[in-house]
């Protein structure tokens, strides 16, 4: 008999796909820097640790954690495969876009193994103990992928000779991960409400605090909040605090001029909405006590698929300011 089961696969759920990019820039330091510089020059260097030769080099003795003297030694370029695995379906993160092998490669003269890839046409050409040499990339940056791949044989495949350049001190590593996140029922309901021009929350049946419609729990009482707990919120309030942000042009930042984010205490109930945008208010006019009302997206704006939501922000009502000095304490 043969039975198997996997739970949960059949459940139908709305998911939203999002890709998070991680554009890391890292300084390399006094040991990895020279190693990467050598790669740009189509050379491998290792570091001496007592009687051992360690490649890729480390700053510290792997046995004692003592800082190692910067005693570098050339190794390779050819080496021996100590072990390997076969990748039949490469991902976009891999250096090659066709099936290849990962391998631990002990470069000639080194006592430890470098992890890299071997470019062969099929798994049949891979074996433990085989000899490999690097195929260098034409455009080298001082990066582990300056070696395009190792290939069978003794001879390195070099490009443009090995011209020494500037020392490499930084490296980029641009990773990205795509997630398919299930969308909770509360999030769907929150979205539906704003599409209808309604501001709604969820009221805890125990402590009666009101939370954002997509929150799902009262964290105080650890009570799950659902449709039964929905309450309508007034669409007017008062600014209790604010910040003016001067945008730094990090990846993904679309703002170029200073802009404000305000905390809005909603009328009649004890709810503060945090980091709300103001509409058509110059940053020099933003102040505590300003009376504001919700601005919803127009039909044309709603049709723009790129819009993050239907609540555009808050606009002054023109009413006199609230001058209660304790307002400034209400930021949450």
């Amino acid at each position, binding site marked *: *008999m*043969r*039975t*198997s*089961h*996997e*739970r*949960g*696969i059949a*459940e139908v*759920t709305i998911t939203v796909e*999002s890709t*998070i990019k*991680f554009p*890391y820039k*890292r300084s*390399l330091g006094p040991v990895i820097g020279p190693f*990467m510089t050598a790669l740009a020059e189509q050379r491998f260097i290792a570091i001496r640790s007592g009687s051992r030769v*360690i490649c*890729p080099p480390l700053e510290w003795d*792997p046995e004692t954690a003592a800082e190692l003297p910067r005693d570098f030694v050339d190794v390779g370029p050819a080496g021996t495969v*100590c*072990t390997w*695995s*076969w*990748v*039949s379906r*490469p*991902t976009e*993160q*891999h*250096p090659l876009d066709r099936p290849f092998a*990962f*391998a*631990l*490669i002990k470069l000639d003269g080194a006592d*430890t*193994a*470098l*992890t890299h890839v071997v470019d062969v046409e099929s*798994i049949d050409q891979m074996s*433990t103990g085989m000899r490999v040499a690097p195929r260098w990339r034409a455009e080298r940056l001082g990066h*582990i*992928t300056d070696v395009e791949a190792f290939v069978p044989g003794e001879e390195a495949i070099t490009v443009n000779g090995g011209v020494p350049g500037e020392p490499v001190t930084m*490296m980029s*590593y641009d*990773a990205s*991960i*795509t*997630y398919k*996140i*299930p969308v*909770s029922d509360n999030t769907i309901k929150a979205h539906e409400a704003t599409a209808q021009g309604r501001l709604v929350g969820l009221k805890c049946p125990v402590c009666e605090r009101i939370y954002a419609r997509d929150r*799902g*729990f009262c*964290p*105080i*009482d*650890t009570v*799950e909040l659902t449709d039964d707990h929905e309450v309508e919120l007034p669409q007017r309030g008062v600014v209790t605090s604010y910040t003016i942000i001067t945008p730094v042009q990090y990846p993904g930042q679309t703002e170029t001029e200073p802009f404000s984010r305000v905390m809005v205490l909603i009328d009649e109930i004890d709810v503060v909405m945090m980091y709300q945008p103001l509409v058509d208010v110059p940053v020099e006019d933003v102040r505590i006590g300003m009376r504001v009302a919700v601005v919803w997206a127009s039909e044309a704006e709603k049709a723009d698929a790129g819009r993050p939501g239907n609540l555009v922000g808050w606009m002054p009502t023109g009413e006199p300011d609230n001058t209660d000095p304790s307002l400034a304490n209400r930021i949450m």
Partner: protein
Amino acid sequence: MSRTRNDDIAVIGWSVSPMERHTAKSETQMLLEVVSGAVDDAGITRADVDFTCAGSCDYVAGVPFSFVQNTDAIGAWPPKSDSHVEMDGAWALYESWVRLLLGDMDIALAMGSGRSSTSDPAILYPMEMDPFYLAPLGADHANLSAMQARTLIDSGMLTERQMAEIAVRTRRDAKSNPLAQVSGDFDVEELLAADYVNAPLRLHDMPPITDGACAVVIARADKARELCENPVWITGFAHYTELHNPGMRDLRSSTAATLAAKAAGVDEAPIEVAELQASFTHEEPLLVEAMGLGPEVSVNPSGGPLAANPIMATGLVRVVEAARQIRVHGRHRTLAHSSSGPCLQQNLVCIMEGD
């Protein structure tokens, strides 16, 4: 062994979520349920818990500071003494145990949660690797593990057939585990006829992708006695790490696992059951040998991580399964193991005993 010192600490309650290929629940929702389950099991409320510690990973969640949202599950008002590790929940339990050893608190709750179904493990796992030498190659957990498996095979320590036999045994054992995701009766020849995923690993050598969470309540001796009729005593708890880069280690063994087992007292008395975080078939015999476990020890009767692998909770589930062997199945002394990092880099061992 007599229990007279209040420094002794016992497991007094736990809860494990359903193990699912895809859950529609958020990590916070999963945690809400297992924390409720664990405090119920211990006969207490959240208000009785003095210290909480969670194990989870932002890269898995796809949300920065995801552990902040997860505190919604612990009832942190009035404020609680709380901590978090970007590690499996087994390490959260270790921190909780150390915290209780200080003596000023009586009850702690450790949890672990992961919803790894939302992304591709081959893309996700390089993020835990060395950012200079490994991650930019897209070197992932499965490929590095596959290289360790080949090292064992090349050394004559293991065959692909023996690996398939381990998969058959764990899947069969998992049939009696209501929480198992992968279970059933399989044939070694059929498994070996399948294509490789990452040669020399086939699908049966690898853990399933699982969403899940787990929570465990521990207490100091006096409180444990007061609350619980059959506390499960933690008699040894240790973890060790070795070099991150697999190319700089002897992959035929795991020194860190050997040291952790010794420090936890593995050889002080017989072990009856070992629940090991052997996420790949070849890791099981490697760990059994590294920890000095004899043939009399029953290994992963729950099916282990090959039956369900809720990453960030897989190790904590091992603690629960080893504790269950004492509380439910009447064993006297069991061992739980957790691991983290490529090719068993970090290893944790928790040894437990009944009265």
